[in-house]
């Protein structure tokens, strides 16, 4: 039995146009608590997904317990003793606690489930974990913390050797967090190997034996938790050469004229959001995944419900209860999820590009003026430098960058004055990224304004005139361009304490 439990050996995972993991090699010792840190998009979740068989790596290999493993599905990993406890626990809520725990490995008596044996075994595990509920109880009505205990019980039932925790405390109360940490310490004492992913550095320094840092899909280094300071760790997380492509090519053009102002916006998961947006400005919105940035923007755009707040557009109070009203006032939204919220499948570039501006292309009775549409398509395809100019080409078959251009053109056609970009270059290759940035600059240069939600710090720093930082549904900082530094943004984005 060697000292190494999990070894990542030159693991690479490519998605079309993106290398999510690039030649990652490091090892996790038997019985240690190994933390994994990095910015959004550093590759932590992809690495866990590869470990758990959700993704098959495009290159490299994984050795667990001296065995070279090739998982093709999560069940393979589970059978091998690799369990996970993630932020959102998947349970089948029509089944009982016990049925959920044994799911996929039910004890059998002949062809039927041996319920008595199942309840006995599961109750034993739950008692050891100090849970108040038992195997026969229904899942419905349990708290997130209790669901997490179910996930841990499941790992124990499946005789896990390795358990990974991915942001386990994200939705727990202080008390639940304490209980969780106790259980994690107990599991470690029993000799299990634990991988722990979190943005909360306090938690990591409290629990971890060693810490590995990932950045941009690459492995940076591993440190002993006792040997490294918090500041030094953050430096390692962000310390890349600030890439040169996310930069303003033209002069800044922000004016003093306030185009949009938001006061005290509240909604599900966020409160008291106030900011102003000026003509000619790109306002960055930074923060960790889960800070509710997208939710704030969807509420502003009228796609989701808001509970309070005033929006003023050009000084006048604007009522926005639906995207239709937002569009009428002059606000567009380029969503983060192109496939589900951006373009329409089966539709051509021409149809997708004209979808929002369509009423303007119609005679009375809604009959479309097809020559006008064709003309506009050509004009805007050229404007956004869309390479595939065949109007009948389906948008779904384009690359991420070209899809983004089609969606951007859709809003440009409507003559909106504010565009909200949510992760404008997510899944876009480097060349197209540059073009998107250039189009954004052109847009503000014409006296319009942009709100740019981004998890890429370089993008926020390079492109923004000012930037807001959102933390747990509130604005934690509003920084001017000269104050924008990765450390500063991260400092305001990270929760202060582990609560």
């Amino acid at each position, binding site marked *: 039995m060697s000292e190494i439990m999990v070894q990542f050996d030159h693991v690479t995972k490519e998605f079309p146009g993106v290398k999510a993991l690039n030649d990652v090699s490091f090892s996790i010792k038997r019985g240690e608590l190994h933390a994994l840190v990095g910015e959004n998009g550093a590759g932590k979740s992809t690495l866990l997904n590869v470990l758990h068989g959700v993704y098959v790596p495009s290159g490299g290999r994984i050795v667990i317990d001296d065995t070279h493993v090739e998982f093709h599905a999560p069940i393979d990993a589970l059978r091998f003793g690799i369990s996970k406890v993630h932020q959102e626990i998947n349970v089948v809520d029509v089944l009982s606690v016990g049925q959920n725990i044994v799911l996929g490995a039910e004890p059998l008596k002949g062809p039927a489930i041996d319920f008595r044996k199942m309840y006995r075994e599961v109750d034993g595990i739950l008692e050891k974990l100090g849970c108040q509920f038992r195997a026969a109880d229904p899942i419905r009505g349990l708290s997130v913390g209790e669901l997490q205990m179910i996930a841990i019980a499941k790992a124990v039932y499946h005789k896990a050797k390795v358990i990974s925790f991915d942001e386990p405390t994200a939705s727990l109360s202080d008390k639940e967090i304490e209980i969780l940490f106790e259980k994690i310490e107990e599991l470690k004492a029993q000799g299990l190997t634990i991988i722990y992913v979190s943005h909360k550095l306090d938690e990591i320094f409290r629990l971890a034996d060693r810490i590995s840092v990932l950045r941009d899909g690459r492995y940076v280094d591993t440190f002993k938790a006792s040997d490294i300071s918090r500041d030094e760790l953050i430096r390692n997380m962000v310390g890349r050469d600030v890439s040169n492509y996310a930069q303003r090519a033209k002069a800044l053009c922000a004016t003093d004229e306030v185009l949009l102002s938001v006061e005290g916006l509240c909604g599900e998961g966020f409160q008291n959001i106030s900011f102003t947006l000026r003509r000619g400005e790109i306002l960055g919105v930074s923060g960790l995944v889960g800070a509710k940035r997208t939710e704030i923007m969807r509420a502003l755009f009228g*796609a989701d419900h808001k509970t309070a707040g005033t929006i003023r557009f050009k000084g006048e109070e604007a009522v926005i209860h639906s995207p239709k009203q937002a569009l009428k006032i002059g606000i567009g939204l380029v969503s983060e999820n192109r496939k589900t919220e951006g373009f*329409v499948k*089966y539709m051509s570039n021409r149809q997708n590009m004209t979808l929002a501006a369509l009423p303007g292309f119609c005679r009375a009775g809604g009959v479309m003026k097809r020559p006008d549409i064709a003309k506009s398509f050509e004009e805007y395809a050229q404007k956004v430098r869309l390479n595939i100019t065949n109007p009948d080409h389906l948008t779904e078959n384009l690359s991420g960058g070209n899809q983004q251009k089609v969606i951007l053109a859709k809003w440009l056609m409507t003559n909106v004055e504010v565009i909200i970009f949510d992760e404008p270059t997510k899944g876009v290759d480097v060349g197209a990224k540059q073009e998107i940035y250039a189009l954004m600059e052109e847009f503000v240069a014409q006296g319009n304004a942009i709100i740019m939600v981004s998890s890429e710090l370089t993008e926020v720093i390079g492109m923004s005139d000012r930037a807001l930082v959102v933390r747990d549904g509130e604005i934690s900082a509003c920084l001017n361009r000269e104050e924008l530094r990765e450390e500063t943004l991260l400092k305001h984005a990270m929760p202060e304490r582990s609560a």
Partner: protein
Amino acid sequence: MKRFLKKSSRELAIVGLILAMAVIFTLIQPRFMQSSTFIDIIEQATINSFLGIGMTLAIITGGIDLSVGSIMAVVVCVCGMASVGGMNKFAVILLGLAVGAVIGFLNGFLIAKMKLQPFVATLGTEEALRGAAFMITGGWPVLSIPKDFRNILNAPSAIGGIRNFVFVMLVAAVIYSFILHRTKAGTYIYAIGANEEAAKLSGVSTDWYKILAYLLCGVGAALAGMVMLARLGAGEPSAGSGYELDAIAAAAIGGTSMAGGKGTIWGTIVGAIMLSTLKVGLVVIGMDTFVQYVAIGSVIIFAAYFDTLQAGITKAISAARKH
């Protein structure tokens, strides 16, 4: 031309299939090859086509309308009684269209505004409307429908003696196809079915366009009901029972995706013609009634499998070209 061939490949393939069936039927029974058979096929396909074009709209939005058979029955009873009661023949037709539109609106309202699942909502209205049809006539059939009303739809036309309703159907198909492809409403209906969220975020009032689709579906069913009334000269509250399934089959054969976002009016029409060719043909060659059901079912399954098959062939061809 090339674009037409590519865009209509599905419809053309079905037409090919219909011709192949005609050849086979003729080989077995030469009597199949006569004009009366073709008129029969087209006339039989008409009611299903009226139901099918509306159904196609509902399915394109990602929904379904199981109530079309019952809408037919209500229209048959209302128009039948109005006509027997001496109402002006054109007023009767307007009344029928209005009844279909109102019921369709109701279906759409339940689905879009009250957020019921289309399957469940229209299953409910199907039952309720069937009951309503029986209540309207007190359970009795409506007999001896006046000739002048019947003649509007049922009289043989100057063109080969084909009855008027076939041309009404063609006009309706042209209008529905125009709505789908040439108006913003049509574009929105496709967008709702393929990606409702993206449509909503593009500023589309998705609820109202969904309601419009069901309303037009109701109008199609009303036309089907009136054609039935005109043809038979009598109406009964049990009319149209089970017809929704034929309409769904016609749409499916014609390439409408049950998941929404895809489908054409002309595909559904050729789908309906294919179904009636099969039904008439099997009778002409004297196939056993029970075996007819098996044959029709098999053809529906084959037509559905056709998509998978076509995709496989296209892939194989492009792979072969690469090598």
